[in-house]
């Protein structure tokens, strides 16, 4: 058994080798190698649609059991994977060297993560989620129950398979094609801190949903999570552009729910196929940087009429500023076209704030006059837009005052003073001559 496995690994390695060179980098932001951590190898077949859609998009999946002692994301200080999918909700502890810190360091060094919890999720998964800003319901046995927007099925169940259609309104995250069918969800819910600007609800629960243990009776106290505060699937974009998806349901990735027909209770629309596949696939495209990744290059500035970039401007100089912004399409960089990119000329506060005009080929440019204030300024482009990686460029440039010989030499309004002083001089000269030689 071992020998073929080694050979397979070797083969695998050889096949990856050319990809290794072009693996995750600023130039090609799409992930290539993904480690999939499973509770149970049966998931490999029960969720095969999800995995095969990833494979068909060119990802190399490396499946490992959660308690595999050889599990590791890092070797000799280098990350071996670009993305991590944790479909192991009940794992209390990973085998090998991986732990919460390891997973978070993986994210903090710019890699992407998909985490799925489920009913009875382990502390490990809950902690990873909490570190990313997602708080799962504290009651370990609680699941999301919704008595008004559940998925209609043959048997009257406990309404834990819910049909959710409250998606995040972003073409960048969920693709251009609208998701018509509702998404089936069965699992636990989580809440987000409203002050946290990095985490977004990709799929929210309906107002009538709540989180409770379906087998126990409702207590008089309201449930800890209820209504639209519940998020079913959340996405996080960290400051270093690493993307994280956190879902409360393992089943939503499964072939069963991918294929299942769906009818939301109280709705007459019945779909042959649930929206899960489209939702998960589009979301995973975003997570693995096939979409919504921007880069800015060639930040340039120069005086009007010159092409060299000066080391310093003078106050009231006219300058031109340009920057190129491209968007990753999944296979190549295409120009990003937008009308709301702005540049600031900034010294403690923006002195100039201008919207850049674009030529549609990625070049954004503008021109303005340096303010009548000297100091150390910065060109700043802060571009943060839902779904896109944030652009934050700054370039320092000092602005000096006039030199001693750059002031106007003769000022028209001062002619009376010039006249006064010159006539004074002439008068003194004449007076001296008269006084000295006219006795």
């Amino acid at each position, binding site marked *: 058994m071992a020998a073929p496995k080694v050979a397979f690994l070797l083969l695998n390695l050889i096949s990856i080798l050319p990809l290794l060179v072009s693996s995750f980098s600023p130039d090609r932001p799409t992930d290539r190698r993904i480690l999939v951590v499973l509770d149970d190898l049966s998931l490999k077949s029960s969720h095969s649609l999800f995995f095969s859609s990833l494979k068909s998009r060119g990802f190399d999946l490396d499946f490992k059991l959660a308690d595999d002692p050889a599990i590791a994301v890092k070797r000799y200080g280098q990350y071996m994977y670009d993305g991590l999918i944790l479909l192991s909700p009940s794992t209390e502890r990973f085998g090998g060297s991986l732990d919460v810190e390891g997973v978070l360091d993986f994210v903090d060094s710019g890699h992407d993560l998909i985490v799925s919890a489920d009913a009875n999720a382990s*502390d490990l998964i809950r902690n990873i989620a909490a*570190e990313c800003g997602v*708080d799962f319901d504290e009651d370990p046995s609680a699941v999301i129950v919704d008595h008004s927007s559940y998925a209609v099925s043959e048997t009257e169940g406990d309404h834990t398979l819910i049909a959710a259609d409250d998606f995040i309104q972003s073409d960048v995250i969920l693709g251009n094609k609208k998701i018509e069918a509702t998404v089936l969800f069965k699992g636990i819910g989580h809440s987000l801190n409203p002050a946290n600007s990095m985490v977004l609800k990709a799929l929210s629960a309906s107002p009538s949903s709540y989180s409770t243990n379906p087998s126990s009776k409702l207590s008089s106290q309201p449930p800890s999570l209820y209504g639209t505060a519940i998020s079913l699937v959340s996405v996080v974009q960290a*400051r270093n552009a690493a993307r994280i998806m956190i879902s409360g349901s393992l089943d939503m990735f499964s072939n069963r729910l991918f294929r299942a027909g769906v009818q939301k209770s109280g709705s007459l629309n019945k779909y042959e196929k649930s929206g899960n596949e489209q939702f998960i696939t589009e979301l995973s495209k975003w997570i693995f940087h096939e979409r919504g990744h921007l880069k800015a290059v060639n930040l340039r500035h120069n005086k009007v009429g010159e092409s060299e970039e000066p080391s310093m401007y003078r106050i009231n100089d006219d300058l031109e500023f340009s920057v190129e912004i491209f968007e990753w399409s999944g296979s190549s960089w295409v120009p990003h076209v937008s009308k709301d990119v702005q540049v600031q000329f900034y010294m403690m506060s923006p002195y100039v704030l201008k919207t850049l005009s674009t030529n549609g080929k990625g070049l954004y440019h503008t021109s303005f006059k340096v303010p009548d204030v*000297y100091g150390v300024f910065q060109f700043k482009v802060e571009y943060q837009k839902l779904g896109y990686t944030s652009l934050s460029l700054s370039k320092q440039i000092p602005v000096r*005052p006039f030199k001693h010989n750059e002031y106007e030499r003769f000022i028209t309004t001062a002619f009376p003073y010039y006249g006064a002083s010159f006539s004074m001089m002439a008068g003194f000269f004449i007076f001296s001559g008269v006084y000295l030689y006219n006795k």
Partner: protein
Amino acid sequence: MAAQETSQSATFRHAFGNVLSFAVLLLIGVMAFSIRLFSVIKYESVIHEFDPYFNYRVTQFLTKSGVYDFWNWFDDRTWYPLGRVIGGTVYPGLTLTAGTLWWILNSINIPLSVETVCVFTAPVFSAFASWATYLLTKEIKGAGAGLTAAALLAMVPSYISRSVAGSYDNEAVAIFALIFTFYLYIKTLNTGSLFYATLNAIAYFYMVCSWGGYTFIINLIPMHVLLCIVTGRYSPRLYIAYAPLVVLGTLLAALVPVVGFNAVMTSEHFASFLVFIIIHVVALVYYIKGILTPQMFKVAVTLVVSVGMVLCVAVLAVLIALVASSPTKGWSGRSLSLLDPTYASKYIPIIASVSEHQPPTWPSYFMDINVLAFLVPAGIIACFLPLSDASSFAVLYIVTSVYFSGVMVRLMLVLAPAACIMSGIALSEAFDVFTRSIKFHLVGTTQNPQDNAGDATKVTQNDVKSEKSEDTVKERSSRKSKKDKENIEKPSLVSRVEKRLLVLPLETSVMAVFLLVLLGAFYVVHCVWAAAEAYSAPSIVLTSRSHDGLHVFDDFREAYAWLSHNTEVDDKVASWWDYGYQTTAMANRTVIVDNNTWNNTHIATVGTAMSSPEKAAWDIFNSLDVKYVLVVFGGLVGYPSDDINKFLWMVRIGGGVFPHIKEPDYLRDGQYRIDSQATPTMLNSLMYKLSYFRFVETDGRGYDRVRNTEIGKKHFKLTHFEEVFTTHHWMVRIYKLKSPRNRIRGKTKRSKSSLQKSGTSPSSKRSTRKRNPWQ
């Protein structure tokens, strides 16, 4: 025949005296230079302290880029992000002087480095200053007094403290310029020569270029002129000495970029203009008096005086209206604190915070001018015997400078030359009297009366000669007024008679001479000690002697070297303003504030950050693009001038602009405390945290050897800053601002509760380990 012989021997003696004085002056120059080399010998040839580093950096720029680039230099590495126009805000005299020296040396193929030239500029100029003192005192009281004063000035500790090798500061050349300007003024006053008057204006221009203390000159000279007018000593010489100085001097002063229109706009200069008007009125009165008969004059005087009064009142009214319309009454803060010593501490904490702007203590007088303090009164008395224009100036100089030195310890430097001149006069007069009486007795007892007579004639000859020279001096000036000459001859006759009477007993004289020499010896010993021990420490390298030998603390340079090697060129370093100049000069990193305290708000921002809790401080520093924060901490080795001791000024200056910083929050029982009694605000302030972070690890209990107490909060963590470098003796600690966290955590309650729930499970230990969210 005999008369010819005596005249011959007199010229010989005269020539010999000149050669002797020249040799003595040369030796004084050598001494003035060499006594200042202790710092080079004991430490190394290095620039000292704070401001000299800025001057050094500017000089480097000057030698590299030339005068025009220096003039237009906009420095983007200080006062980030405001920048500073160096060319227009710096007194360029020192820099130009050293730059010129360097250029001359290089062009005659003496390839000295800029630093070497800068280090030795001050000693060279102190030699010049002692020669200038000779010239000035010679004009006041003759060559003997001049030589004595020059010798005293060459080693007066007050001046040494500012001009040791390496102390490359404005004062180094400014004291020379000050004395030389005074010399030229007195010279003009004594000769009435327009040539010297012009030179005087140029010397004044050099002084204006060199130091803000030029306002002392432009106030003292008008005061003297006014004094002369009031005491009836008005003469055309006075007019020639004063009027060109005001006109040319003001025009020239306005050429210096840092002064500019201040030369006519600020009240520091108004006294000179007022006196300029008065001297013209007086000149007019004298002129009219000359052309009118006494009766006519009496009529005219009422007319002129009343018109003059009206004019003066009108001008005064305009001035007062102008001055009153400005909020600070037209005076700059530093000058106001001179007039009202409590002004600065009341209103301008940034001025009060500088130690050299504090009033001096009594011991510092003894330390800085030593025995001169006792000789000065004698000198003042000597100046009144007889009182001339020049000696009245000396008296006025000493009186005003004593007052100013009492206000600000830094102005001891202005007092020192005055004290030297006075003491020189006193010593010289005393020696004159004693040696004459000794000579009189010796000659009287051992020789026959003929010789006695001969000696007596010699003495009188000397007197006559000096009188003659005085007369020739006067003659040129007093071409117009013969009365003047007669007036002067009378008191000199009187003084000759007095001198004959001033003969003391032999033993007394010998004893007195011995005591005076002993006094001088003590002075020399004290000066050499002060130069060697007290004033030659460069303050960037510290030493301490303990039972196991000499310790050298080179932490500052260690820290700056670390910064220059381990940080990016454009990184910004925040520290209290004291260390700004050194950071830009030695580490070549951009600083937020520096020792040129031109923007109070910016300094207050840094002060606020230092006195805020970590998060608020991080926000402030981040908004200023600061990457590193540098604090100076003396608690481990007992270095008293560290940032904790300066902390009250950070709070005060910060609170002056940002009212949410309240000083009482940091005080317990009216005191800044860092021990267990300290207030929570104090213990949470950034300065406390950065100073005492990990301090408890050194000795286990956190004992601060400056404050002599155990610190209040010993174990704490930094969340927004990380320590990146601490020097060998912990004197400089450098922290880096952590970048904002990559993710935002959810409720931490989550992991806590899970800890409680799964406390028994072995796996939870690892997963619930506390993470620092700022990594």
